[in-house]
């Protein structure tokens, strides 16, 4: 959690619109009838920036965003000739020993490590030799069996919006020649091959525009999030 916050702050400092894309394969699936993607519960939070820039979490916007993202994912995956199956939370997910919960937690750690060690020049790992080479291990096979899918898509989005107060502060500061930051989108998506556990596609989204509260711009955001998604 803390690492993600640090990351958001660090990425927010990068200029302009930033998308980073890593992928191993441009194509999904080995046989046509197995092109099914398991959609893991999206980790999404929308917030409004107070005048001073503190993110105030917004429950209603987040609910809307989740609905829009789900619909957009369905549409975009269908265009890529893939089907989606939604991960179903169950009572077993409240058990600390649940393998699925452990896998989701493992993905958080591996995903964050991947961002840190690829995005920042100083943090690059010499033994990776510039290759994008990350895996969750073959424990992912359990999910493949449970849902009959070959891939799982994990998404993480933190999306903030400029409030009236923030807009006023930005305008007033601009008159004095000082630039203050408005709302931003930060997110990443990973596609995991459930048979090997490898991350086969990864995309980072960090930009100062986009809107998840309405369907049309939300679809645009999901398209940006899924840029160069294997077809």
């Amino acid at each position, binding site marked *: 959690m803390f690492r993600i916050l640090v990351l958001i702050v660090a990425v927010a400092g990068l200029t302009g619109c930033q998308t980073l894309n890593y992928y191993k394969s441009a194509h999904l699936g080995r046989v046509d009838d197995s092109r099914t993607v398991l959609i893991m519960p999206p980790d999404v939070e929308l917030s409004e920036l107070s005048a001073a820039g503190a993110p*105030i979490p917004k429950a*209603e916007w987040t609910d809307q965003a989740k609905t829009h993202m789900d619909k957009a994912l369905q549409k975009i995956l269908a265009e890529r000739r893939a089907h989606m199956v939604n991960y179903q939370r169950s009572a077993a997910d409240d058990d600390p020993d*649940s393998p699925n919960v452990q896998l989701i937690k493992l993905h958080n750690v591996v995903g964050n490590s991947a961002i840190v060690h690829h995005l920042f020049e100083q943090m690059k790992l010499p033994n990776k030799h510039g290759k994008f080479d990350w895996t969750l291990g073959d424990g992912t096979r359990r999910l493949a069996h449970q849902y009959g899918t070959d891939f799982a898509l994990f998404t993480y989005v933190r999306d903030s919006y400029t409030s009236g107060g923030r807009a006023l502060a930005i305008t007033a500061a601009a008159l004095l020649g000082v630039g203050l930051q408005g709302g931003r989108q930060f997110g990443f998506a990973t596609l995991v091959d459930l048979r090997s556990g490898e991350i086969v596609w990864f995309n980072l989204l960090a930009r100062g525009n986009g809107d998840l509260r309405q369907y049309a711009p939300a679809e645009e955001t999901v398209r940006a999030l899924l840029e160069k998604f294997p077809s």
Partner: protein
Amino acid sequence: MRIGARFVAVAVCAALAGCVMAPGDQKPVVSNSASAAPVGPARLITGGAKLKSEEVGWETSADPYAYQDIRPGTRPAQKSDEAGLWMVMDGMERQLRTAGNRITDPALNEYIQGIVCKLAGPYCPDIRTYVVRAPHFNATMMGNGTMQVWSGLLLRCRNEAQLATVLGHEIGHYIRRHSIQGMHDRVAKADFLIFLQIGLAASGLPPGVYNIAELVAMGGVYAFGRDHEREADLIGITLLARHGYDAREAPKIWAQLQQEMKANKDYSAGSLFYASHPPQEEREATLTRLAEKLQPATDKFAKNRDQYLAAIGPWRNGFLADELRLGKFKTSQELLKMLYADGFKTSEVRFYQGELHRLRGKTPKAEKNEDLLSFLGAKKDAPERNDFEVALEYYEKALKEPDPAPVIYRSIGLAQQRLGNDDAAREALKTYLSLAKNPKDRSIIEFMIKQSS
């Protein structure tokens, strides 16, 4: 002209500040700042106890946001800031539910949730209690009703009444919606500051004015938080008395904690200005005064010591081992002394006294490194005797007690090893393996035996 410009800038700034100080989606309600006593449904469970601020003995905070108590069985409206806060906390609760250090043992959880339900009454279903293995004196409440009880608290409470004091305090945070109050306060003050900063920059006033304003606002945020703690203390002790617990146990937890903290000579209470909680001395004094008001001095009120020890008993040794691993030997020593005086089993106190020495592992020879230590800022506190030798003496005493635990032999083995007595170490480790039932560390101990032979 110039003065005019300044005035406009300051006035604009003040107007902006006034506007952003008012939380957006909260309807103004009649302020309750005249009294520190819980209002609204909190009285459902505190029995309408309404104490005036002069009785409570502290300055009551102004309550600029005028929050009513949360009602039992409700969630905040989806459009509100509070719902946003709950959303984030729901996510944190999901993480907590599957956290590796959570204690899921049904007996312990039922016991603690039972006390919570008794105290919280109609709020019982709204508060979910998680027992967490964390060796510090603490319990926490998130705005959505997620309560954490840390194992370090369970180790330190002497009876159910003391535990209930803390549980009631946390319930108070929930009912009074301190999370959202705190968030609105921090946001309002930060918003005020940014416009002040812009206004001052525009007016050309010296930046020092801003620094002072920032300091005042920061101090205000902490002071507001301390007032919440005082309010929660009041609700906690009111619930305690109302449910027949001995309210005189409430101040004792703060006295006990002070005794423990002061065992470390380097202990300092930290800055009063930035403190998140009122000083322990103040809390002890206030709770003592409140207990006298709430209950006549008789023995008829419940401490439920036996019930408490029965529930915590199976866990206490593990909690004490966690405490020693923190490496805070001065305060741990004091805690051990207090637990011994309180009737903790002699055999176990001897064993853990030995463990304290073994884990500290200091030797008189450490003086050699004194130049380096003083360079690094460490204090000279080499003991007169080798800690491992002292540890062995305690283990021997523990072995003479009835029904000694096999783990004592493991510690003897480890201490002997550090003293270079390989044969004695091997012997003790072998005894440990022969006596322990399915020890989890069997392979590492076998490896150690093999290594030293």
